[in-house]
């Protein structure tokens, strides 16, 4: 289980996270929603151990990422798979080499076995035959799929998705969401996703958490969030502009 307690972070005197609290159940899909600039990516970076908070704790399987050495954090990261917003594929490597990279660098598997697993991994995301191409030679949607294949190749326990559908057309958004749901069902990993895709995410999430002004203002199953009486939540999921006042009041 991932447990976040009182997470606080500021940059140059500007507070981005203000005592954020959240629990993520094992095997669930938890989606964090919220406006741009609300601190979602900063929060995700704390979960990944890329940032240290000013105060608070991030517990992953009982290990507090904020109070252990880099080696201990790496041990927790061995259980992670991460899909970055832009894919973060290594542009000097082909798609197959990208997917093979974690296996090549972190396991003792032979070349033939790695090749076999990469082929299976790419097939799982519907990208047979794309292996020899470089990331710049394929479309944005395909890059996201390669990134998902790379994140899942080591069969991680926890997978983080940082806005995996940003910049894609609605058909591709649904296709990526379907893929994530399908892979989650097959591998049973815990998924933490940051997304803006309303209402599509309500179809795949077990839990939705609304992050606003550095805090989780509402958390629960999709139906509870959709029926929430919190004006901030309602304004966000309905995509209403600021005249409603909810965001202004809260700010």
């Amino acid at each position, binding site marked *: 289980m991932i447990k976040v307690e009182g997470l606080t972070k500021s940059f140059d005197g500007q507070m981005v996270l203000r005592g954020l609290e959240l629990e993520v159940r094992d095997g669930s899909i938890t989606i964090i929603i919220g406006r741009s600039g609300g601190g979602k990516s900063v929060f995700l970076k704390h979960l*990944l*151990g*890329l940032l240290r908070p000013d105060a608070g704790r991030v517990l992953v399987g009982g290990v507090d990422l904020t109070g252990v050495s880099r080696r201990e954090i*790496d*041990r927790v*990261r*061995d259980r*992670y798979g*991460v899909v*970055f*917003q*832009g894919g*973060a*594929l*290594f*542009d000097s490597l082909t798609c197959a080499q990208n997917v093979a*990279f*974690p296996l090549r*660098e*972190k396991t003792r598997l032979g070349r033939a076995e790695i090749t076999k697993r990469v082929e299976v991994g790419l097939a799982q995301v519907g990208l047979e035959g794309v292996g020899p191409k470089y990331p710049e030679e394929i479309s944005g949607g395909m890059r996201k799929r390669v990134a998902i294949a790379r994140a899942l190749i080591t069969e991680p326990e926890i997978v983080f998705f940082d806005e995996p559908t940003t910049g894609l057309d609605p058909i591709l958004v649904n296709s990526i969401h379907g893929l994530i749901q399908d892979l989650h069902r097959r591998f049973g990993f815990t998924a933490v996703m940051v997304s803006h895709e309303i209402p599509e995410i309500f179809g795949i999430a077990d839990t939705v958490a609304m992050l606003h002004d550095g805090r989780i203002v509402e958390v629960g199953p999709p139906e509870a969030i959709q029926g929430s009486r919190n004006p901030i939540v309602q304004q966000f999921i309905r995509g209403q502009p600021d005249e409603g006042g909810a965001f202004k009041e809260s700010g």
Partner: protein
Amino acid sequence: MADAPTWAVLRPFELLGERVLGLLESLGRFGSFFARAVLSMVTPPFKVRAFVDRIDYIGYRSLVIIVLTGAFTGMVLGLQLFLTLSRFGSEAFLGPAVALGLIRELGPVLAALMVTGRAGSALTAEIGIMRITEQIDALTVMALSPFRYLVTPSILAGVVTFPLMTALFDVVGIFGGYLVGVKLLGLSEGTYFGEMQTFVHLDDILTGFWKSLSFGVLVTWVCTYKGYYVGHGAEGVARATTQAVVLSSVLILLWDYFLGSVLR
């Protein structure tokens, strides 16, 4: 709380303090960056493939520019020294003068400046782009050290390639001087090379060697550091690349003077 006039008087000191603290923080980060790179050099796993790639990136791909600049530097030296020495009737010393100038001073400095312009800037830009496109974060969250893949191999490649490229620069430069002094201006071949053997000693070669070795460390250290801690977006990469080249070039000249004084 201080009143307004007091605050206004103290403000310059406050700003100065902020600047000094900022500078100290940068220096500390610069030093700890190098310490982390050195630590990765002496602890496994060693990334041999990345090291070989970096030798190709920094060394092999800089060969053309090294040969070109080496040849023309030697030719210019040959011409100017011949004209100067001939005023004193000492043209016979053209060979050693060209060789000493290149081996002790111009070879290490110019080769380092050329490699900084070609490979150092590319190194900063490459690592900077990897930073802003989250490729470095991707390595980190895979529990793999970006230092082992990007920084340490580059610094080690600098240590290996800079002395080799300086040696090449020196040899090509000496032949450039030969071309002008012997083939164009009529000095005898035996005089050019014979006097060189008399006046150039092992100490001179070692001086050039230590200089080029330290430039290799300096340039790759600065360029990888600037790329690793790049600012935001394309503008951040552009600024980091410029800073890397300017800082490396200035440090090469400062360090050259310092080593030149110590290794006399």
